[in-house]
């Protein structure tokens, strides 16, 4: 491979055209926009920073520049030496609700070597169904095949049978530990601020690592660098505002956006007076600024800060949130070598609060990261792009810290902090040796170390303590190297069909322990250590992709098999709260999942949308759980269907609808009962031997775009969640009958019935 690369370098004199592809109206970079040379039949796409570089023999060519939702632009350029040129594209319609999603992305799914990648550009995000007045990225990806919501009121999602802690979520390169607000109803991503979303379910390229099931890579807008804009929405449930503008026209820009819910409104729908006296809301801020320092340098600063609050009867509460701060610097070494350097600070914490007359108590858990990334992209020629780089993350884990105020009868305490260093080097090449064949291969070498200071316990295989050792600051407690090959290939059968194959291996060094069936913000992140090994996944995917009617219809079928080593779960009856020695409560085993995903998607026309169906299994085998027999993991959801439809009735009205259906989670129910000390006790046999009842729900929405008054644009959005008010089971409890103590019942708890919402969106 290197040989082929080298032979190209010494070809005849080549010239390079490079620059950025931008939105003409606001200067935002377009990610994944393509520039194609008609005469040579070569092309390339812009990277996450809107940068493109294409190398060819000198000559006069017609370049076709295009991007989904924008008018294609044809340019004639006579290129005899290297040229740097930024190109601007104009959007298709002036309306705020750009609803026509054209097939210009066209055959991207057929052409690229990306496997199991779904990309949502800014236009597509605004064309998805709206819930509570917002277009939510997390809700949308859960409508794709292979991705499942962890459950109503839950903050996670599962990808291809993996659990909620196995998904990497990046916001402008910064990892986000809990991407949900309000128990999963809203994501932390304010869709006004998003530029581009990529979801990898498999075929994960070498520049990503650290989570074995998926990567959700989100890039925020930069801010309009031509003129000021204010946009926002006022709704029954939440409101948001965004202000953007130039720092220096066409050179630098910024934006600030904020969002807040007053979801306590939900609580007023409840009959129970116990529910009314509660506080439940969240807010978040996104801030970003960027400045172009010269032809070769651009600098970005971004920040996110968000928090959720819950206070019950003014006495007990939980609040939690993420904050991230990122500094990035794009540098062009020469026409073809692009570097992005990133420095990130990230903090995720949650706090339990007790507020009594005598005093207050806060119990906090947190995870703090400092991280540095150097990512190079070398656009050797249109058929060869190299990526390489180095990543480094320093983690600090705060498992529990108590602070008190007043005369609370508890001492201030702090569980010992833990430290770890996660590093990686990677290299990958995208290579297209022939028009019908392109592939990407890469290798990521990761190296993890758990560091002191700290008192470290050695455990036997049953979790019993053998002895302990004290490590000083910086001493290495445990180390794990990992070699992670990545490979994907695309055999293009013709313009409309292709066959793809991919394999990846990924290591995960930070683990999410959850003792709830659907995830809660209090799930615990723990580092790999002398007792906890890294999780490792191997995934093979194969897929067949076929488009119809000139890319108006996109269909695909993907089959995957994923094998996961060193999976972690809690022991039966584990003592997890504030446990200094939580490692003694863990069991280790392996897991695997496999499935088939079907997608049929209509990309253009008045009616567009998709139907997704996933058939899958996900199983686990732990020596000490379920008596050493294979059992289904809780996310083993056999059938999963999503139907999404958007109908652009006319220029003013657009309707959308979503219907989801999935067979229930695997769950442990009692198979009998007995009595101890006069109390009825449920008796359990196999683990996850039952299924929750099937979940299904219909959401509808309608958007009415108002006439534009000068610069002021506005629209109304009406939406209804769970239109036929199905009582989907959030949990099923088995308890004694209230009236007849001799009787025991299955009691279904359902969270959300029908919820209507109205939002007014504006922009000026």
């Amino acid at each position, binding site marked *: 491979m290197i040989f082929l690369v080298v032979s190209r370098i010494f070809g005849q004199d080549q010239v390079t055209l490079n620059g950025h592809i931008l939105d003409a109206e606001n200067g935002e970079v377009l990610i994944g926009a393509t520039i194609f040379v008609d005469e040579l039949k070569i092309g390339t796409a812009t990277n996450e920073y809107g940068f493109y570089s294409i190398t060819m023999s000198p000559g006069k060519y017609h370049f076709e520049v295009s991007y989904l939702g924008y008018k294609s632009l044809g340019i004639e350029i006579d290129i005899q030496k290297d040229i740097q040129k930024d190109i601007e594209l104009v959007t298709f319609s002036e309306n705020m609700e750009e609803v026509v999603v054209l097939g210009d992305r066209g055959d991207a799914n057929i052409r690229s070597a990306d496997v199991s990648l779904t990309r949502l550009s800014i236009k597509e995000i605004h064309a998805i169904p709206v819930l509570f007045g917002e277009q939510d990225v997390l809700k949308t990806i859960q409508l794709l095949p292979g991705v499942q919501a962890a459950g109503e009121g839950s903050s996670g999602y599962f990808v291809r049978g993996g659990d909620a802690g196995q998904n990497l979520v990046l916001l402008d390169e910064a990892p986000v530990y809990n991407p949900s607000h309000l128990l999963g109803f809203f994501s932390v991503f304010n869709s006004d601020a998003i530029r581009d979303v990529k979801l990898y379910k498999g075929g994960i390229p070498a520049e990503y690592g650290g989570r074995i099931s998926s990567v959700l890579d989100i890039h925020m807008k930069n801010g309009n660098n031509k003129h000021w804009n204010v946009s926002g929405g006022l709704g029954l449930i939440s409101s948001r505002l965004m202000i953007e503008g130039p720092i220096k026209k066409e050179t630098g820009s910024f934006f600030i956006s904020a969002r807040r819910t007053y979801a306590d409104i939900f609580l007023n729908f409840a009959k129970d007076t116990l529910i009314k006296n509660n506080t439940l809301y969240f807010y978040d801020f996104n801030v970003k600024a960027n400045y172009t320092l010269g032809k070769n340098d651009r600098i970005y600063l971004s920040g996110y800060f968000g928090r959720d609050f819950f206070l019950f009867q003014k006495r007990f509460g939980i609040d939690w949130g993420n904050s991230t701060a990122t500094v990035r610097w794009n540098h062009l070494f020469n026409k073809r070598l692009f570097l992005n350097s990133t420095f990130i600070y990230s903090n995720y914490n949650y706090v339990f609060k007790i507020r009594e007359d005598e005093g207050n108590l806060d119990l906090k858990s947190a995870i703090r990261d400092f991280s540095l990334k150097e990512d190079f992209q070398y656009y050797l020629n249109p058929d060869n792009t190299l990526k390489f780089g180095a990543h480094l993350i320093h983690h600090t884990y705060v498992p529990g810290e108590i602070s008190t105020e007043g005369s609370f009868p*508890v001492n201030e305490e702090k569980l010992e902090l833990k430290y770890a260093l996660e590093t990686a080097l990677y290299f990958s090449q995208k290579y297209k040796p022939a028009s019908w064949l392109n592939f990407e291969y890469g290798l990521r070498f990761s190296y993890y170390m758990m560091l002191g200071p700290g008192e470290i316990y050695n455990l036997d295989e049953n979790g019993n303590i053998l002895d302990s050792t004290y490590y000083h600051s910086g001493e290495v407690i445990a180390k794990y190297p990992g070699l992670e090959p990545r490979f994907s290939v695309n055999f293009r059968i013709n313009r409309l069909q292709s066959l793809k194959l991919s394999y990846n291996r990924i290591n995960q060094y930070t683990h999410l322990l959850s003792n709830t069936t659907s995830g*809660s913000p209090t799930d615990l992140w723990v580092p790999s250590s002398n007792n906890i090994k890294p999780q490792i996944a191997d995934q093979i995917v194969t897929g067949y992709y076929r488009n119809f009617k000139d890319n108006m219809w996109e269909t695909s079928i993907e089959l995957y098999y994923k094998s996961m080593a060193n999976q972690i779960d809690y022991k039966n009856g584990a003592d997890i709260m504030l446990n200094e020695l939580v490692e003694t409560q863990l069991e280790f085993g392996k897991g695997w999942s496999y499935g088939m995903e079907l997608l049929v998607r209509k990309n253009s026309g008045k009616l567009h949308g998709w139907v997704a169906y996933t058939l899958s299994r996900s199983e686990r085998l732990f020596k000490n759980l379920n008596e050493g027999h294979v059992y289904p993991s809780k996310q083993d959801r056999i059938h999963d269907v999503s139907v999404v439809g958007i109908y652009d009735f006319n220029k003013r009205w657009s309707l959308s609808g979503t219907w989801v259906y999935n067979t229930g989670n695997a769950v442990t129910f*009692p198979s009998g009962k007995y009595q*101890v000390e006069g109390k009825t006790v449920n*008796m*359990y046999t196999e683990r996850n031997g039952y299924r929750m009842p099937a979940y299904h729900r219909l959401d509808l929405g309608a958007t009415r775009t108002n006439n534009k008054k000068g610069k002021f644009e506005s629209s109304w959005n009406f939406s209804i969640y769970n239109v036929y008010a199905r009582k989907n089971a959030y949990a099923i409890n088995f308890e004694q009958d209230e009236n007849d103590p001799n009787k*025991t019942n299955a009691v279904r708890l359902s969270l959300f019935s029908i919820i209507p919402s109205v939002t007014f969106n504006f922009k000026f």
Partner: protein
Amino acid sequence: MNFRLIHIIIKHIIFIFIISSLTSCEDIIDIPLNSSEPRIVIEGVITNLDGPYTVRISESVDYYDPGEYPAVNNAHVELSDDAGSVEVLEENEDGLYISSKMKGQPGRTYTLKVEVDGKAYIAQSYLNTPVKIDSLKKEYFPAVGNRESGYYIHCYFTDPPEQGNNYRLFAWKNGEMDENLYIMDDKFINGQSVDYYFFINPYQIGDTISIALASIDRPVYEYYQTLFNIVAQQGGGNPANPANPVSNLSNDALGYFGALAVDVQDSVVK
């Protein structure tokens, strides 16, 4: 003690948070459950106080069956210590086997052997030296939110210096036992004076209080803890992955055999 209190409060918070703060609704539904083979349930306790000691043997039933748990009669029940004494317990009431001669001696390890239908179920438990209650105090709190006004009891005792003490506390009000499970270990309070605060049920003037501090061995502590996990869930608690409690009985018997070293103090609320 500190952590145990926080632990319990937080468990309550999570429960309340997830379940009752939202527009939730509960209703009884029909979920078919498998039948299961009845399993034997053995509950046996020996203490340092005078006997008789009891062993209750019953069976499990299918989940939707009425709450009548068949007693197991004609079991051979034997209680022995590590000094050579052995006693066969007589069936007194339906499924209830009682001792007549044995008296629990701290420092001894007791073995319970139950034979039914050719199968033997055996467990051992060590009877500790009882830890004494130093004193009881009552503290008045007015009604706040859900909590009633009344006197809440503090139980003071001193944890012995060696690590590895486990406790269960019992409380009676006017002869009726408080159903909550109060357990703790000395992980965070080893060798210290402990203030165990019964913060759930208040007492009123004129009530008689009885508090017992039982020292138990680790397997019995783990049984109570894992039993508590399930029973708490049944009340609608944190929906986690339930499993049968970890029993010290062999051969898959449900229940447990515990040697409890008890110190009791009585009082009246004045």
